[in-house]
């Protein structure tokens, strides 16, 4: 190891109009290390990295790569300087194949054929070297997020990146996938590559990084050696106060059964059966957690229960059957039945991004009589008043009900949705990925709210890909795979490994020396084959 840092940023500042996202930031990353960056939502982590990658242009500041001052006006320059980046929101062309995405911008010559052939070879090689298996001819939109992320990493490696930036890579991964990613990163590090890792998860920081920098409100507040710090200290540095890292909850006192689902089946518009006979039960005063790799039907389960999709089977709410296909199988009817729904995708389902916060507070409840002035007009003042109360109680920042939803950070957007759904005092709360992309300060708050609702005797169905979250919040855990429930466990009687295997459809423990990820991959491949066959027949 030399003393010249692989990356050195000096005095980087960047503002988006009136928002100062980065303020005079300096940072040094040594070659061959993994450097973590943590910080609350909106602290400016993504912005800083995007500047390094030439996606944004800094207002001021200097960039040194391997000791040499380098101008990075665009991503082309970054790539030329050996930098690769996996963005928080993947930058993939959804209806292109993996191969096409990989060569995009790095083609050899004007014709595609030779480029594709070459890339196919390189990809095969990379796949072997780093265990980065993906079908090169698969469409991106058909891939799981985990595989999409592999494509992003392959893109960077294909361009022979020496410095790899990963922005919240594990937010969407299963534990097995996350473990696998970390092994890849360690492999890359051994080869002397430099890695910057942005994450909200302190466990990951502690596990894999060599040094860690903390950002707050656009400033770099500290850089420490990982070995010399603790999660508690980091959390405090990040949020500016002490944070409870574990969910504080008493044992559940389940009451009568509120939600009963029997043999629920749903087929999507492409003709693929997404729910294959789901049966489950949630009692008052308990949280049923549904674990699973995304894309195994959990989303559809929530959407069917929330009235967004039709299905067959039986669903009973407080003992009464509800309509799953007809006139009353919509979100309005579900709400009328006392079902609240925090959707998985807050940006595309839970909120209307150009709507103000107060308008969003009425979203889905726009029929509520207390929001109406008369038969024709809505009572905007009443909604606004309601919204201001919710913003205060849920500590939404900034506390401005007139701000458009898109101008709030992800965590605060989530708080708006939660406030709206929880304060309805529903009998049943459907909640999907409540803390996806949310910083630890907000996670703590959101978890507290969900537990509090449970303690009021409400039934909660929680879907999450975060096993940590599932294990710490749920009173019972069900695992979904391929549209079916693979099994149910009590959190106290299971562990991440067992759940991880169930999530991959593996019901018995594999050989000791076979890496888990291979088992998972085999299972996924088998699943895909089955699907392809079905498609072929139809």
């Amino acid at each position, binding site marked *: 190891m030399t003393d010249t840092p692989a990356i050195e940023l000096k005095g980087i500042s960047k503002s988006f109009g009136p928002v100062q996202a980065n303020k005079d930031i300096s940072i040094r990353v040594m070659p061959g290390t993994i450097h973590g960056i943590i910080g609350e939502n909106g602290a400016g982590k993504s912005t800083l990295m995007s500047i390094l990658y030439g996606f944004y242009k800094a207002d001021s500041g200097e960039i040194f790569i391997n000791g040499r001052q380098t101008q990075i006006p665009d991503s082309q320059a970054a790539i030329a300087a050996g930098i690769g980046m996996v963005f928080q929101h993947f*930058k993939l062309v959804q209806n292109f194949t993996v191969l096409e995405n990989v060569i*995009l911008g790095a*083609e050899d010559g004007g014709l595609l054929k030779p480029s594709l052939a070459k890339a196919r070879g390189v990809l095969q090689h990379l796949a072997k070297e780093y265990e980065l298996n993906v079908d090169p001819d698969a469409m991106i939109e058909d891939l799981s997020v985990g595989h999409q992320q592999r494509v992003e990493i392959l893109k960077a490696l294909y361009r022979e990146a020496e410095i790899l930036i990963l922005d919240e890579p594990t937010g969407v991964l299963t534990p097995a996938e996350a473990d696998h990613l970390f092994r890849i990163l360690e492999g890359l590090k051994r080869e002397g590559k430099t890695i910057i890792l942005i994450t909200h998860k302190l466990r990951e920081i502690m596990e894999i990084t060599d040094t860690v920098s903390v950002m707050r409100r656009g400033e770099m507040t500290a850089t420490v050696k990982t070995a010399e710090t603790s999660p508690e200290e980091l959390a405090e540095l990040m949020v500016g106060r002490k944070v409870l890292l574990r969910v504080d909850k008493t044992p559940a006192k389940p009451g009568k059964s509120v939600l009963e689902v029997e043999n629920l089946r749903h087929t999507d518009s492409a003709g693929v059966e997404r729910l294959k006979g789901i049966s489950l039960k949630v009692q008052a005063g308990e949280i049923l957690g549904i674990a699973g790799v995304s894309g195994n039907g959990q989303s559809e389960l929530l959407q069917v229960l929330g009235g967004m999709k039709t299905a067959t089977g039986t669903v009973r709410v407080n003992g009464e059957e509800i309509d799953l296909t007809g006139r009353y199988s919509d979100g309005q009817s579900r709400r009328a039945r006392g079902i609240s729904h925090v959707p998985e995708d807050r940006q595309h389902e839970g909120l209307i991004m150009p709507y103000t916060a107060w308008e969003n507070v009425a979203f889905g409840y726009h029929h509520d009589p207390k929001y109406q002035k008369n038969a024709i007009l809505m009572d905007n003042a009443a909604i606004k008043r309601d919204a201001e109360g919710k913003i205060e109680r849920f500590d939404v920042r900034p506390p401005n009900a007139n701000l458009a939803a898109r101008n709030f950070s992800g965590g605060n957007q989530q708080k708006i949705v939660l406030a709206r759904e929880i304060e309805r005092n529903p009998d049943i709360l459907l909640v999907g990925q409540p803390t996806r992309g949310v910083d630890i300060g907000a996670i703590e708050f959101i978890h507290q709210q969900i537990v509090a609702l449970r303690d009021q005797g409400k039934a909660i169905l929680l879907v999450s890909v975060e096993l940590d979250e599932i294990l710490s919040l749920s009173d019972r855990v069900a695992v979904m795979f391929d549209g079916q429930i693979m099994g149910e466990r009590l959190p106290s009687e299971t562990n991440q490994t067992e759940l991880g295997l169930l999530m991959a459809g593996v019901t018995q423990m594999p050989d000791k020396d076979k890496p888990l990820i291979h088992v998972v991959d085999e299972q996924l491949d088998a699943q895909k084959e089955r699907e392809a066959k079905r498609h072929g027949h139809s």
Partner: protein
Amino acid sequence: MDLATLIPVLESTIRLSTPLLLACLAGLFSERAGIFDIGLEGKMLIAAFFSAAVAYSSGNVWIGLLAGIAASLTLSAIHGLASITFRGNQLISGVALNFLASGLTVLISQNWFRQGGKTPTLTDGARLSEWHLPFADSLRDVPVLGPIYSDLLSGHAPLVYLAFALVPATWWVLFRTRFGLRLRAVGEAPEAVDTAGVSVVGLRFAAVAICGILCGIAGAYMATGLQPFFGKEMTAGRGYIALAALIFSKWRPWYALGACLLFGFLQAVALRFQNIDLGAFTVPVQVMDALPYILTVVILAGFVGKAIPPRAGGEPYVKER
């Protein structure tokens, strides 16, 4: 319908389809790159005028063609400036350019030729001549294939063959070349192109320029090939029909060919069979006139289904809010 009636109808189909096809492919390049363009009509119109005007003045149709392309490219540049550089509303820009072309062509034409917006009639070298395919004359007597080859396929202006050749060419460029890959990507996910180190602005301008060139050819074909003069508003709404064909074809080159041929065919049929006498009553001419449009709706509703435009279409690429 026997061959003797069918062939003229099909010939007419080819002629009527050609400007649609060129404009449709033009729109395809632009919209595949994420720039919506309802200004096809205006570009065709201005190209029609300048090609005829310059062909008349120079006596050379090819110089006229270049002038038409240049005029259309100018409008493309404005559209690019508005929708790419200044991230303006692409629909408004298109609407404005249609108005601009409609006004400017007559204004300039009147200023230059004083014939009320019409250009003088082109003759000889100023006019696009027809191409006769080899052996067209000697093969005419071969049954069935002879007339098809000699009457239907032979004897069109070179731009017609160009237009049809552009279909596979477009397909090839879009799906077999680096440029095509990037072009399609920029219409689907400009941020992916940007982070891959390719200029979104450059690609989109290139696409808009190709759109301009093809619209230029379409307009020039109308005013130097189909007709040897420019008359005011002579594109008569074909740009909008081309737009419809583009959506109809779901932004795919071969489908575009099919859609344009369909529109051309329906029109050719409607023009040929007016006032059909059904004995008891005569089908009014208005019904036949509206028939292509009615059938389009029926086909669209019955068979085509949902057309999903390029994902980033119509939206300016904004990195920083």
